[in-house]
């Protein structure tokens, strides 16, 4: 009984892995895509394995009921998925490696020059970091300052706290077999989608804004040349 149970589990894991690898390959004929698929396969296997072990250790006490458990789970998932996306989008495995080096701080850290002063208000944190090799320079080609940081914060808020599509559409059973997945039902008339004029207007507005942003008109900023 135990052996058949374990063999069934192993088979399920193998199927998950094979499916995800194939999905990776479907996205493109390259190792980066296959590895991406493999990573997601691993995450699924680890998740299933973890739930199985959890049942044995904690005897059916749902740990995700605690806020910390939930938050930790979210963070782990988010980091795992982000790292997999880096590989997916990279031109090559080496390219992905370079991105990771940057992300993990192996290439050092660079902040705008005025941050030195700001951070020094915190018990001289600015000088401390500078002493440890952090740079404070204007040569930040890709950082757009507060606007960019603000946008990212807003997006993070939406990612972690806003309802997902399944929750928006929950009135109309948007996917099969959702009941077993523990997706919290959002009990809010404002948040639920319904086929009413207000939602039509919101949808049209978003659609129009998106479609109109596809094409840009290049502008020449009048430098004194």
């Amino acid at each position: 009984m135990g052996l058949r149970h374990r063999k069934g589990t192993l088979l399920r894991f193998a199927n998950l892995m094979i499916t995800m690898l194939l999905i990776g390959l479907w996205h493109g004929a390259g190792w980066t895509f296959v590895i991406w698929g493999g990573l997601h396969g691993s995450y699924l296997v680890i998740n299933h394995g973890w739930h199985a072990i959890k049942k044995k250790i904690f005897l059916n006490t749902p740990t995700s009921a605690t806020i910390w458990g939930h938050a930790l789970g979210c963070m782990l998932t988010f980091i795992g998925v982000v790292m997999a996306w880096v590989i997916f989008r990279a031109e090559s495995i080496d390219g992905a490696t370079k991105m990771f080096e940057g992300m993990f701080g192996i290439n050092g850290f660079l902040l705008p020059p005025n941050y030195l002063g700001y951070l020094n208000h915190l018990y001289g944190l600015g000088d401390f970091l500078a002493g440890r090799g952090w740079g404070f320079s204007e040569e930040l080609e890709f950082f757009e300052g507060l606007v960019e940081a603000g946008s990212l914060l807003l997006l993070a808020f939406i990612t972690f706290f806003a309802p997902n599509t399944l929750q928006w559409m929950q009135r109309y059973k948007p996917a099969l077999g959702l009941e077993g997945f523990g997706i919290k039902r959002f009990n809010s008339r404002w948040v639920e989608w319904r086929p009413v004029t207000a939602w039509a207007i919101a949808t049209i507005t978003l659609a129009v804004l998106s479609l109109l942003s596809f094409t840009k008109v290049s502008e020449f900023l009048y430098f004194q040349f």
Partner: protein
Amino acid sequence: MTSKRPFHEYLKKIGLGLTMAFAVVVSFNLLMDPYGVYDIPGIDGINIDKPVFRSHSRLAKAYQVRHQKPAAIILGTSRGDVGLDPNHPGWGGHPVYNLAFPVASIYEMLRYFQHAHSVNPLKQVVIDFDFFQFQKGHLPRSDFDEKNLAVDSNGLPQTQGIDTYLATLASLDAISDGMETLSKQGQNPGSLNNGRATFFSLREQFDHHEEFLINEHNYFNKQYRKFVLATLEDDPLIVGSYRTLLKTAYRREIDFRLMISPSHARQQEVIAAKGLWSTFEKWKRQLAQVNEDEARKAGKPSFPLWDFSGYNTYTTEEVPPLGDKMSSMEWYWESSHYKKELGDRVLDLIFSHVEPGRVVAEDFGVKISSDNIEQHLAKIRRDREHWRTTHPSDVAETEALRK
């Protein structure tokens, strides 16, 4: 569950709403016509002034040429854009359009020439050349789009891509530019119908000296930083385009008049401070040489090539002291952009036109060719040495860039 009717109603609302929204957007963009693509009749207070032409000159000017069909054009960078007047009496009466635009590359000048010529065969072209255009690797700017031009680089007619329609009728940028157009009606739009830019700076109080310093700093540290002169062998896009321009002009017997921009003496000091003086001279020789080469091949007399740079009456105009925001220089905005007043004198000489009441200094402008270029360059060197002894503070400021 709920009945199907609400969904049908909902979808109908979406369909209707989307259609209406797009109709409104396209109508607004068409009416405002912020880039002048559709030549919509001008309505006072609504769309007659076009304030965003200036920041979209490659796009706007391509279409103005289509609408106005000029018989003569000005080509060049922002210097020609600001300084050379299509209404100068020396042009000879035919419609003229100022087709110069900021940081124009030689390749772009060739393409816009081909464009204008295909819209209406050109009789006359004045080209204001600048040193930085001949830097190896100088590329067209990001807002250059071949698709806006009537002919491709081989001279064959090409049709409008759908992208231009999408960009000018169905984009957020067009809406935002349309709103800017609407809100700035009645103000100085920044460029005239004939293409010339009306102002260099909007600032009420213009500190010439500060502008000189900023411009010189930019040139020293950016444009001239790793300057290598383009040669035909390693940069066909630049010298090759120059040759093609001349070749076409000689073959079609278009009246071309070439000029080297009247940069201020201090701008030339920056060139020297960067160690590029001999490169600068080499560039002038190259301009003359290629011109004569193409003339010889075509069996025609070579086009006039004027050098308005050097250390003459106008280029050595005194710069007001730093902090002086009230004095207005007569001939210059800053070290490279000359005012229309000087541009008028440039055209007086180019067209051998004498304007009653307008004096042109004797030492301004020399027609150069292989015959006289060495004496000419030697004279500039002498003039420069003399100016340097009498202008120690200007020299000090430009040499300070080296630190």
